[in-house]
């Protein structure tokens, strides 16, 4: 575990800085006193158990929820993100865990929602071409972009949501479990993509439960547990270390399972990959 100020790509400036963010939902404290820094050209992975408050944090940054307390500093200014439009204007693009697509609109309309070309006479042809380009870039397997999103498969929808966020020219990209529903090829493309945008100097916050992916692209791994900061790790931290920070115990389901499998493998003497 490293201390809060350490980061690998600190040559660039601070893009986002959170201090003391708290958020209650009724009697549940979803977030308590969260601190987080994100620099330009850096990929910060946000990991944590289910219900740890990761999505709540992302939603606060996206302007969906208002925090109950705490300050948000974006590019040196203290900002009030009281509306998703405000976030978007500042240059924060978000892929939400629940995707936030309009099921009744088709793929093209969803990708361009709020940013249509030619407001008074929508340029459907240009939008459709751009949509195909974006989707192909992500290796998407979508038969038709003129079907309503309701008829797409889970992974196809997720691809659409990711394609949406590429349309902006943001300073900070928030990806809430962007690869959860994606196939192997699409996941690889998204990880490539994250590296590309990082190299272009953008800041990326990625949430994922897949430690492989996290370690592959992240420059820093921030762990949340039960709504509180629970340590910051380098990507070369061991799996064991990360998992105990996430679950809050070194004896957890993951380690038990690993032990058991180890045991049964040795027992059956039939190694599996």
């Amino acid at each position, binding site marked *: 575990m490293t201390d809060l100020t350490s980061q690998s790509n600190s040559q660039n400036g601070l893009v986002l800085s959170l201090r003391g963010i708290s958020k209650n939902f009724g009697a549940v404290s979803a977030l308590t006193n969260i601190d987080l820094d994100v620099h330009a050209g850096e990929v910060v992975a946000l990991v944590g158990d289910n219900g740890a408050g990761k999505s709540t944090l992302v939603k606060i940054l996206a302007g*969906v929820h208002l925090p109950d307390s705490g300050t948000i500093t974006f590019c040196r200014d203290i900002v009030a993100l009281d509306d*998703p439009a405000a976030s978007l204007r500042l240059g924060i693009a978000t892929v939400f865990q629940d995707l936030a697509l309009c099921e*009744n609109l088709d793929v093209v*309309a969803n990708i361009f*929602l709020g940013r249509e070309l030619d407001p008074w006479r929508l340029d*459907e*042809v240009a939008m459709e071409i751009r949509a195909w380009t974006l989707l192909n870039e992500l290796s998407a397997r*979508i038969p038709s972009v003129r079907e309503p999103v*309701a008829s797409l498969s889970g992974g196809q929808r997720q691809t659409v949501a990711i394609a949406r966020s590429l349309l902006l020219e943001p300073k900070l990209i928030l990806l809430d479990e962007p690869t959860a529903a994606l196939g192997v090829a699409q996941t690889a493309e998204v990880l490539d993509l994250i590296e590309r945008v990082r190299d272009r100097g953008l800041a990326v916050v990625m949430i994922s439960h897949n430690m492989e992916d996290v370690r592959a692209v992240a420059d820093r791994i921030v762990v949340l547990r039960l709504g509180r900061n629970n340590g910051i790790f380098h990507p070369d931290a061991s799996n064991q270390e990360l998992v105990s920070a996430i679950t809050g115990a070194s004896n957890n389901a993951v380690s038990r399972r690993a032990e058991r499998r180890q045991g049964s493998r040795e027992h059956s003497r039939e190694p599996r990959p």
Partner: protein
Amino acid sequence: MNGDKERRATSAPLDRADERIRSDTGLAGATRAFLDRVRSGDLGALPVVIGLVIICTAFQSLNPVFLSSNNLVNLLFDCSTVGVIALGIVCILMVGEIDLSVGSVSGFASAMVGVLWVNMEWPAWLAIFAALVVGGAIGALYAVLFNRFGMPSFVSTLAGLLAVLGLQLYLLGSTGSINLPYGSPLVNFGQTLVMPPAVAYTLAAVTGAVVFATAFRTAARRKQAGLSARSLGSLLLRGIVITIILELVVYYLNQDRGVPWMFGLFVALVVAMNYALTRTKWGRSMNAVGGNREAARRAGINVRRTYMTAFVLCATFAAAGGILSAARLASASQQAGTGDVNLNAIAAAVIGGTSLFGGRGTAYSALLGIIVIQSIASGLTLLDLSSSLRYMITGAVLAVAVIVDSLARRSRMSHGRA
């Protein structure tokens, strides 16, 4: 494994690259695509049109006057007034809200025109303008109640229904009803003014040409961009069929008085709204807000402004419809806008295919729906029925008219296409 297939696919247009999608090119392909859609119930307005044809055949066989040019011209006049109100209802249903006060607002607008124009002798255009503005202001009030206080539109517009009715009664309090002068341009517009045959024929031809031209331009651009596009032949065919149908309708109506200007206005409004709803950024945001309000908000759409425009448009169309019905009746009365105006306007939108739950609907549903409703009403006025029978039959015919559409929708749903 499927490498050869993939290679073959790469030569296809960008949007036909997926091998699973059947590309229906040519006439045979179009036919197959159509049959496919029939089977899966994805037919747009066709089922309602079929329902309409059934109704018309039945009424025609009961009384041959029904399809006479004369009666059809009356029908078109009658459609236009409530139709304009239904157009506003389409807007508000689009965003998943409702306006129960369109009847009251229409009545109030007609009262305003009566009082301002006839009693206070303002120029007609100014009175109409004032009525439209006040109508829009009522809509804006609903929007504020909705946006600021989160008051459900059902409740706020119910309150509005009562309050505006009160205003209407108050305005007409001393006189009860006001005659609009016969022979004035407004009343002529509502009662007798029809397009000269030449104009009507030209408009019909121009419509067909415009439909063809826009489709052709799009097709050309798509082809150029490497997307699939409909063939010139099928576009030409469609343009010609549309033109011929329209010309025939115009010809038939011209046997009697001709095509009412009021109906022309209504259709023009429908076409304009259709354009606005499908081809502008605003229309897209209306669809998005109706489909998933939160998603629209997260996309940075100004949701409040969208609701505002929807409420204002709805109330303004209601006011316009009220003015048209005053013109049609040559009178502004206390009863204007009461009774079943609300229900008819909402029903027209719903029958035409607009969803009560938002995010699904077209401007054309107002046109189609009101034609269905008025056809039933008109068909029944031609039969000598007691009130009780008339009510029963209206109900039954309404159900029949919608049943085809309902069946199509069901099959659409069972094919996994909501």
